[in-house]
């Protein structure tokens, strides 16, 4: 029954996509699509959530679709149900936001049909249980999101972003295709059940792991496969950016977990290293990119790369622990990864919604042209602030709880017997610590430049608060972020069945602990209580504030800015986003980004302005992608002469082909 509800919900979403095309001219199309989308994703959310919370046994269903002699298999287990919750929570919020945002978005008729299809595609990926249907849904999801990326198709940059995205997505799909090919074996047993039953040799397993990392990692935005992400995610309309960055990357995480933890069988210890190294690199590189970027949505997209890095590090730890038989530690790491995925989905959606609201209100995403929005858009500013605090992993919000769990898992690594892991894990831990604090810097900059200070442009100074639906969506997510941070134990307990089925153990049950603390291993080892910390902070700031207000002056005088007596009237003299990140750029820029600065000083006595330019280059793009593109283009150029040969030369080709084949035959016999 739940399976039927889920599949019919997905089918209804697909139908909705068609309806959106049919009614694209109607005035009510936006209401229809997002309203119905909201209801349907809520339905899916409830079904998935109930399945997860009730710890129900896995459900399976097959339909006579897809590969003819295999059929389309669907399966709902705890892992799927959890990701169904993430996806549909995100989808419901995006639809709610879309109810308002969709009214004033550009090119609505190019967006509406694809949004329900996108949601349906992501849901399908989670439910499928055979390779063909999985890849079909996977690539369908990519394709629909590609269509959403190129919505504003008149901008050449958007089209280029779409191109890079689709190409990387297709590469990823091929990698997964090859991985499934290996798992399925020569007889073509494409069902997940058969793959689970079959044991692959270690070398094949390693190859599968590599391919999965390429395939799903490119979708998740793992460095060095991330290049498309900061282009494509921001190019889409904001609620779609939110879905892509917040939710679709989680579907990629799902794919990694499903294949590596579920289908691949017993792991080898060094598999963890692959995930750890890539995850650590993504975490650091992602946040550094984000720090040097001034486009709001690109900052958010890069920050997704960072968080994906965290998730992959946790997954790598889980894999290593599992390979060495430390089931409890593996359960901790896996739970941390899943919990972080959940938190990041919420926070990233929230922030993209905010960026969308800002973009709509001011017409720009460039932080150098924003400022002071906290006065014009107070509610949005508040929600984004919660998002920023959350994503910077500060207590008592949700992402802190999950990152805390990740650090706890790292601290368990001395028990691992292999030297490689022993040495690597602390180093990765240091990377993560660096990434966390850089993220805090990044989001201070993000919030400070956009919402604080004085408006840096006309548009920013006349901004208006966004519509009610958008605000409702943001408030909802902000509330969830707070609740998730205060009551992490609830989520951790809900994740128990997943880690039981994947690594054989689950974390200690948290719900029964006093004061709703979370305890990963044992209370004497470490514990954290978000609720209590929150109560302490609230109480003590309340006490201080009221004490001061009672015993001291309550008067407030308004005056011009003091600024040490040097009151500048020009908002352009404020600290800018790029000057904010300058100290950090000095530290990391020259090594990781080949940063060069150019100062152009006018001669003495000239009134021309001095110019200062910073060049940052994406090292990975320059060293990896540019050469590959160059090779393809060179080959294409070289081969192109074959279009312009004379007939005689074509005949010579035929002749040569014949003679060489005959020679082969002569030699063969």
């Amino acid at each position: 029954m739940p399976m039927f509800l889920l599949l019919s919900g997905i089918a209804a979403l697909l139908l909705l996509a068609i309806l959106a095309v049919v009614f694209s001219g109607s005035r009510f199309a936006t209401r229809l699509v997002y309203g119905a989308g909201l209801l349907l994703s809520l339905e899916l959310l409830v079904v998935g959530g109930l399945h997860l919370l009730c710890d129900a046994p896995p459900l399976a269903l097959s339909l006579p679709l897809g590969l003819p002699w295999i059929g389309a298999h669907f399966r709902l287990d705890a892992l799927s149900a959890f990701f169904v919750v993430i996806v549909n929570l995100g989808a419901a919020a995006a639809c709610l936001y879309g109810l308002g945002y969709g009214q004033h978005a550009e090119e609505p008729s190019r967006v509406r049909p694809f949004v329900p299809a996108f949601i349906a595609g992501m849901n399908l990926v989670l439910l499928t249980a055979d390779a063909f249907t999985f890849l079909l849904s996977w690539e369908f999801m990519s394709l629909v999101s590609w269509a959403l990326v190129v919505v504003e198709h008149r901008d050449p940059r958007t089209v280029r972003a779409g191109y890079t995205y689709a190409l990387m997505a297709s590469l990823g799909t091929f990698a997964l295709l090859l991985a499934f090919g290996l798992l399925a074996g020569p007889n073509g047993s494409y069902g997940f059940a058969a793959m689970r039953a079959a044991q692959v040799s270690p070398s094949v397993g390693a190859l599968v792991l590599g391919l999965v990392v390429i395939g799903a990692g490119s979708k998740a935005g793992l460095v060095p496969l991330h290049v498309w992400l900061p282009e494509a995610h921001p190019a889409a309309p904001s609620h779609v950016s939110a879905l892509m960055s917040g939710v679709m990357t989680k579907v990629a995480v799902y794919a990694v977990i499903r294949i590596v933890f579920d289908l691949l069988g017993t792991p080898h210890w060094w598999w963890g290293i692959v995930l750890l190294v890539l995850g650590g690199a993504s975490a650091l590189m992602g946040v550094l990119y984000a720090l040097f970027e001034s486009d709001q949505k690109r900052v958010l997209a890069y920050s997704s790369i960072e968080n994906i890095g965290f998730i992959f590090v946790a997954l790598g730890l889980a894999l290593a622990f599992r390979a060495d038989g430390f089931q409890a530690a593996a359960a901790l790491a896996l739970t941390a990864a899943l919990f972080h995925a959940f938190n990041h989905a919420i926070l990233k959606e929230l922030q993209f919604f905010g960026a969308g609201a800002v973009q709509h209100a001011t017409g720009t995403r460039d932080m150098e042209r924003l400022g002071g929005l906290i006065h014009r858009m107070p509610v949005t500013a508040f929600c984004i602030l919660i998002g920023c605090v959350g994503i910077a992993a500060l207590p008592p919000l949700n992402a802190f709880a999950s990152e805390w769990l990740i650090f706890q898992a790292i601290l368990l690594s001395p028990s691992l017997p292999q030297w490689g892991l022993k040495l690597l894990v602390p180093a990765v831990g240091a990377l993560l610590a660096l990434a966390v604090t850089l993220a805090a810097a990044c989001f201070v900059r993000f919030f400070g430049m956009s919402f604080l200070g004085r408006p840096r442009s006309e548009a920013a100074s006349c901004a208006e608060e966004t519509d009610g639906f958008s605000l409702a969506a943001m408030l909802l997510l902000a509330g969830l972020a707070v609740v998730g941070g205060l009551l992490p134990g609830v989520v951790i307990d809900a994740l128990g069945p997943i880690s039981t089925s994947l690594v054989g153990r689950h974390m200690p049950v948290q719900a029964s602990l006093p004061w709703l603390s979370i305890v990963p291993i044992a209370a004497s080892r470490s514990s954290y209580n978000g609720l209590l910390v929150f109560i302490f902070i609230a109480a003590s700031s309340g006490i201080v504030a009221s004490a001061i207000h009672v015993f001291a002056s309550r008067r407030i005088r308004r005056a011009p800015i003091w600024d040490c007596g040097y009151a500048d009237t020009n908002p352009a003299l404020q600290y800018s986003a790029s000057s904010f990140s300058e100290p950090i750029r000095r530290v990391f820029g020259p090594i990781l980004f080949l940063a060069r600065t150019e100062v152009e000083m006018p001669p003495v006595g000239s009134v021309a302005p001095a110019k200062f330019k910073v060049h940052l280059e994406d090292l990975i793009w320059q060293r990896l992608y540019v050469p590959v593109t160059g090779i393809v283009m060179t080959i294409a150029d070289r081969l192109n002469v074959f279009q312009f040969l004379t007939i005689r030369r074509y005949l010579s080709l035929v002749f040569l082909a014949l003679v060489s084949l005959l020679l082969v035959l002569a030699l063969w016999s």
Partner: protein
Amino acid sequence: MSWLLGHNVALILTIPAVTALVLTLLPGYRLSAKLNVAGSLLTFLAALSLFAGHPPADPFVLVDDLNIVFIVLNTFVGFTTSLFSMSYIGHELETGRLTPTYLRFYHAMYQVMMFGMNLALLVNNIGLMWAAIELATLATVLMVGIYRTHEALEAAWKYFILASVGIAFALFGTILVYMAALPVVGEGLKAMTWTVLLSKASEFEPSLLSVAFIFLLLGYGTKAGLVPVHAWLPDAHAEGPTPISAVLSGLLLNVALYAILRFKMLMARNHAAISPGPLMIALGLVSLLFAAFMLYRRRDIKRLFAYSSIEHMGIIVFAFGMGGPLANFAGLLQMTMHSLTKSAIFFVVGHIAQAKGSQKIADIQGLTQSHPLLGWSLVVGVLAIAGMPPLGIFMSEFLLVTTTFVRAPLLAVLLVLGLTVAFGALLLRLQSVAFGMPQGKVAPVRVSVLPIFAHLGLVAIAGVYLSPMLVHWFQHVSIMLG
């Protein structure tokens, strides 16, 4: 009804022949366009009736699981293309690119071509098959040159010369097969009858068969557009009328492929002969990779898709070269889907070229904005041809890549490389054509929606659901192909 079932093979052949005859005599072009459609429809219906029942194999006619798929596909695409050409040719007449006299010729030649292809698919004699394929080829040569522009004439000339060499090779290969069969089967017709040849193939002189296969592969491969004997294909597609491009890509290539498959089956029965697999794999991969890179520098939209046809023929030949139930199934499916998709793309491209008055990619931009129907159909079509789900080619490429990777990982890597490179090029062009600021003429055009939607609809359905009947057929054929 029983009469129909008894004579359906004869009908499939006589309807186009008679229609061709009538069309040469008929003056009015509107009427002849309708007659063309009617003839094609009747042929298609007759072909459909083959499902209900068909005569047993005799020395001249053979209907088995392999060719029934080809025939039905052939007549179906023939029918939809005739529908498309009705509106397309009307426009050409209005713009003065063609005169009524040429139109009469065009319609007659269309049916001659259909006759040739149907005959090639149905006969049970390798000599007749050869002759029928040549008939169809020569008919298309004439059609390619019908615009009589410099480019069209050059394309037709190139096509003619290269095809003639292919003809010669194929005939020589056929003679060699006969020679190989002679000592075993005896003189005369029997030594050319396909069913007899197949049953005795294991006793044939293996090395003679090997030489024969090389000639047949190159000879029919010329028709199928395999690199390095492909050179006629891009220009013939680009310069001829678009319905002919659709038929060339959708049908003639298949018929040539059919011939190659028949001989491959023969080779498979004779274990001492050279194994056809590696040859086909090599030619297929070369075609795929070559065409994939060639796609990047194309400026003419029809030539672009012509190279994509070469690419797909490469994939299909590769699949059959790999052999085994999965790869063969993939090959058959890929072939079917490619026919449907590529002809649909050419329908769309034909209308686009008419709407914009140009085939140059640089002149076409922002189609989804200026002509949403055409633009989005093109998007779907190109995504389908690039193997994106949920469209049919995805399924075949899925099967092919997975099964190849397990059996020969290196080949699969090359295959994936080719597919990715090709996708990159196709997508690059698709985006510039479908998106961006609309350029040039934006006036609406009359679009024959039915053929486009019928093809794309079938492709979309096949991507998620294949009817068990079709699957059964394909599987049986896969086993036949070995």
